[in-house]
């Protein structure tokens, strides 16, 4: 195992252990005790297993999971940021259809292997995005009658 995944394993298992300890602490300190009987049971097992995993990561004995290499992280980052902005801000503020159209087009532009210098590929992206919007609108607004936030435009 190289140093990068080992450090990553320590951070990941450390975070899981922190969650486990927090869950156990809340379970054993909150009242009424009867409501936390089952959480106490599972959080105890949770903490034991999480600390075991954390210990193995610290000692470098973790055998499963390859972590994330720098290249994958760099590939993921722009798409993930766009997706998070879409879900946690744009969908509500701009409306689902406007936001999802913009997100679709941006993701397509970011990850489509076709050249960015050709007009033809941009036209293709616009057509695919328009097709996606039409299908989503037809399915959710017309067929399923789902009333999504429609702040600007529609």
């Amino acid at each position, binding site marked *: 195992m190289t140093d990068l995944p080992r450090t990553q394993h320590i951070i990941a298992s450390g975070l899981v252990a922190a969650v486990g300890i927090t869950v156990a602490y809340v379970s054993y300190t909150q009242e009424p005790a009867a409501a936390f009987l*089952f*959480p106490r049971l599972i959080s105890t097992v949770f903490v034991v297993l999480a600390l075991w*995993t954390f210990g193995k990561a610290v000692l470098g004995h973790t055998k*499963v999971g390859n972590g994330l290499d720098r290249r994958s992280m760099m590939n993921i980052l722009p798409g993930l940021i766009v997706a998070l902005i879409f879900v946690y801000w744009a969908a509500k503020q701009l409306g689902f259809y406007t936001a999802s159209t913009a997100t679709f087009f941006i993701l397509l532009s970011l*990850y489509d292997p076709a050249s960015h210098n050709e007009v033809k590929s941009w036209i293709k992206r616009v057509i695919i995005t328009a097709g996606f919007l039409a299908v989503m609108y037809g399915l959710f607004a017309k067929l399923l009658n789902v009333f999504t936030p429609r702040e600007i435009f529609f």
Partner: protein
Amino acid sequence: MEFLAYFGDVFTPINFGLLLIGTIGGLILGATPGLSPTMAVALLIPFTFRLEPAQGLILLGAAYTSTVAGGAVSAILLKIPGAPANIATTLDGHTMAQKGQGARALQLSFLASAVGGVFGVLLLIFLTPVLAQWALAFGPSHLFWLAILGVTVIGSLDSSSVVKGLLSGCIGLWLATIGFDDIMGAQRFIFHSSVSGGINVIPALIGLFAIPQVITMFAKGRKSLDAEVLTVERHPIKDAFREVFSRTRALTIGTLSGSIIGLIPGVGGQIAGLVAYDQSKKMSSESEKFGTGHSEGVIAAESANNAMVGPSLVPLLTLSIPGSPTAAVLLGGLLIHGIFPGSDLFDNYPDVAWTFINSMLVGQILMCIFGLYVAGLAAKVAQVPNAVMAAVVLGLAVFGSYSVQNSMGDVYVMMALGTGMYFLERFGFSAAPLVLGLILGPIAEANFIQGSMIANATSSVGQYFFTGALNLTLITIVVASIAYSAWMELRSRRYTTKDDAIEKEEALS
């Protein structure tokens, strides 16, 4: 033979139309690399809200069945398995296609899938009513242990690390306790208003299965799919029929091993295909031909992964314990209609239960017929760039999660769980036990509390939960599955797991 009484219900215009849509759509989705059967079924759930329970289940069941078979199309024509279940098909199927026998390989694959699938569904038909009646004898302590069994078996068998698998199960069980306690009404772990009503299972399922796949597609960057679709030449279907039924050894091994593996919670189709392929190779008189485009390899693998589908639903429909992630998603599809599986399903909703099961039987035949016709189209769809697939899946996940309760909170939870799951998966954690924990958590807790009350009134908690033949049997299975997996892990000769299968799939693609 109660199922025969409801057979006609499958052929009403709406039901049959949904069966066709589910089958053809499933075949196309199944051929698309990265769209697993579980994810396809999870994304389809929002479309079933407005349907009758039986209609919704028909759509989901057809999609489940045909996505498994559809994965063979890209495995054979592109050398990219549509799902981990089709990895073994690639070994001989693609070689056959390279030799100009693509049509023959596809025909053998769909015919073998149909034979295996029909056998699996017949097993489901004859086993479920018997087991459902037996399940009536289960009390709170047994149901508690069954729920724990569901989480631990999948946690230990489905993951490459027993500890991380069980830890994933614990995270799922904890997530299930978020919200208001049912008995005291106390608030538990409500750290954000989005989770004040607890975590809704459907958005959680969509997030846990779809978002990691979207991020995996992002991770590949601006990579084009270099795989070339091999052209398919005509091949008489009569010959394929004759060949499938002349290769009885491979067909029997595939069908039986797939059915048995399907009955074991947590094992799944990817393993069924590989085990059947391996066993057929060992028992074949032409074992040296395996891997060189031998039809027995395709027949064994494909009959096994479809034979697994029916039996994998037995624990769900009888004991309310989903035996696989896809069964867990189907449970979500039942719960949104207020139907709880088990004896209640067969006693109070026999029309729903039997129409659904019968539709799976008819679906196997439709899948075989249409599979042969839509294979070319499915192979083209399989070449859709990652960028388009990622954006489409993200859009469907967001709209689908919102449509459950028209709540942005569900969308936030879906995205948070999905993003978290992607990173956890990179470090060896697994979504399947987490999902099972989330679904079985309320069942485990309700029966634990109920059992504790009974125990306090009659005997001690220890005596109530740890004595009795059934309790001890269930505890023994829980301990044995963990011990077996730990032993295999220590010896580093662990049984093929989902992670191994995915690694092999990645290596192939």
